């Protein structure tokens, strides 16, 4: 059996008396596309924050490619191959689109510590940034200020930053939130082009897009894993309807 890209065991987290994660466990294989489903407040984004280390767990274990990362900070986990997007955009609004991607590329480059070299003259970085922008259809917007972009373009850039990290595990937190129908279709096509070398875990409420993307689904409620299985198994299970519709 191969080493999973992500393996979580007995993960728990409480804020005071509120238990937001209750003994959660999951296993994501290399190249897998996984959907995390659950109603609002189920703990989906908290789960992502626990995986990336933005929140420390109360108990449990998180392994990335077989390595225990529970004690590591967010930056060290990113260096091990975790990339993520945020539900609320976290872009560098005052900078250009290209500069945003260059920053993402610097995150895995020792050059980031250099205090005197001119960043603008690093042509290799600029070429890499151009390649990433081409993948998300933003190459022609490279010199544009992020503040002047449309919301849909910003959503693409959010994904571009995560892709620039060349992650082994990509966590997509509602990548289609707030988009129009046309924009959703465009980003859906873009997500399907993410190479299979990257295991992807996605939180998404748009069922059409989410189900067309994922092969496996985990259903979460009150921080507990209710169901875990193939797309067909979870969709046809009465508990899915119960969790979402209450009957």
């Amino acid at each position: 059996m191969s080493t999973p890209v992500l393996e979580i065991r007995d993960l728990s987290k409480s804020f005071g008396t509120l238990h937001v994660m209750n003994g959660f466990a999951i296993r994501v294989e290399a190249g897998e596309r996984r959907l995390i489903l659950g109603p609002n407040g189920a703990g989906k984004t908290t789960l992502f924050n626990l995986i990336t280390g933005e929140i420390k767990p109360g108990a449990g274990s998180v392994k990335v490619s077989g390595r225990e990362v529970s004690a590591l900070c967010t930056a060290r986990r990113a260096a091990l191959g975790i990339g993520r997007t945020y539900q609320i955009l976290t872009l560098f609004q005052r900078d250009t689109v290209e500069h945003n991607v260059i920053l993402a590329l610097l995150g895995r480059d020792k050059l980031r510590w250099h205090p005197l070299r001119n960043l603008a003259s690093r042509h290799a970085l600029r070429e890499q940034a151009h390649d990433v922008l081409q993948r998300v259809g933003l190459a022609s917007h490279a010199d544009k200020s992020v503040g002047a972009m449309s919301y849909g373009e910003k959503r693409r850039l959010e994904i571009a930053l995560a892709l620039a990290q060349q992650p082994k595990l990509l966590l997509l937190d509602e990548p289609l939130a707030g988009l129009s129908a046309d924009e959703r279709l465009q980003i859906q096509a873009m997500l399907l082009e993410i190479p299979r070398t990257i295991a992807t875990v996605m939180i998404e409420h748009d069922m059409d897009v989410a189900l067309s993307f994922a092969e496996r689904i985990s259903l979460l409620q009150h921080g507990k894993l209710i169901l875990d299985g193939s797309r067909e198994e979870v969709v046809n299970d009465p508990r899915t309807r119960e969790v979402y519709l209450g009957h």
Partner: protein
Amino acid sequence: MNRWLILIPSALALLAIAHLGDFYINFASRILIAAIFALSLNLLVGYAGLMSLGHSAFFGVAGYCMAWLIVTRGWSPVAAIPAALLLTGIAAGLFGLLALRAKGIGFLMITLALGQMAWGLAMRWVSVTGGDNGIRGIARPTPFGVDLTTATAFYALVATVFSLVCLVLYWFTRSPFGASLRGTRDQPRRMSALGFDVTLIRWSAFVAAGCMAGLAGVLDVYFNRFIDPSVLSLQSSAEGLLMVIVGGVDVLLGPVVGAAAVLIFAQVASDYTEHWTAALGILFLVIVVLMPDGLVPGVRRLWTKLCTLQTAPGTLANQLLKRGKAR
């Protein structure tokens, strides 16, 4: 704006000052030393987004270290410089470890507390610092046999150090580390997720800013040939912050313009009234209300507006031009 349009007049102004009287030359030296201090503070405030109220501690630590080594231990004025900067770097490293545990107001309060501790130490550790009386009789160095006791020679040294600091900061703002530091200011959460160690980046900037403030402290001790606890006071830190905010944060030239504006205004106002600090407060209020980003970005914005007005088709100048052509 073309950088030569700023660089050439600035270099000429620096040279021209050397031909004025001693009073003006010394005043220019004071401005440049204050500008180096304000530039170092802007590294924290403008580029890292860390508002500090204890920055003068590093200015004072370097100054006291220099004074003590030269006067009490008999070190040469040149040899004392690296020792003073090293000690300042260590102090900044320790202060940074404590202060960077907090963010926002918490960071501000910790830096304020640490600054006050340094000031208290300078006041009470009389055997080393001379207490309220400070330390006197600090000799200026004579690098390569050059006598720095004249106003012009010392000004030349300060102007050279100031130009080097500006050059280093210009490179720094365009560097990968400069971009990383600005990233931690704008989106610290995202920066962590991208693999940047936000705390380490901020700590490095804190130490660099501390050393740069120490450099200003070294020059100040040579300039005054005297040091007392007032250089470490909260007022000194607040004045530095005032210079940065008046000139404009996140702009290389902002703190330089701010230092010049504050010191010139204080000098002129003190000639007319004893309450010149109140006048300084009014100046600060006026600038914050009219140009909230500071003088440099404010003037830049005004200039852009003027240029837009000149080229706009409906302006009086363009209408007259069109009529003239029609005739």
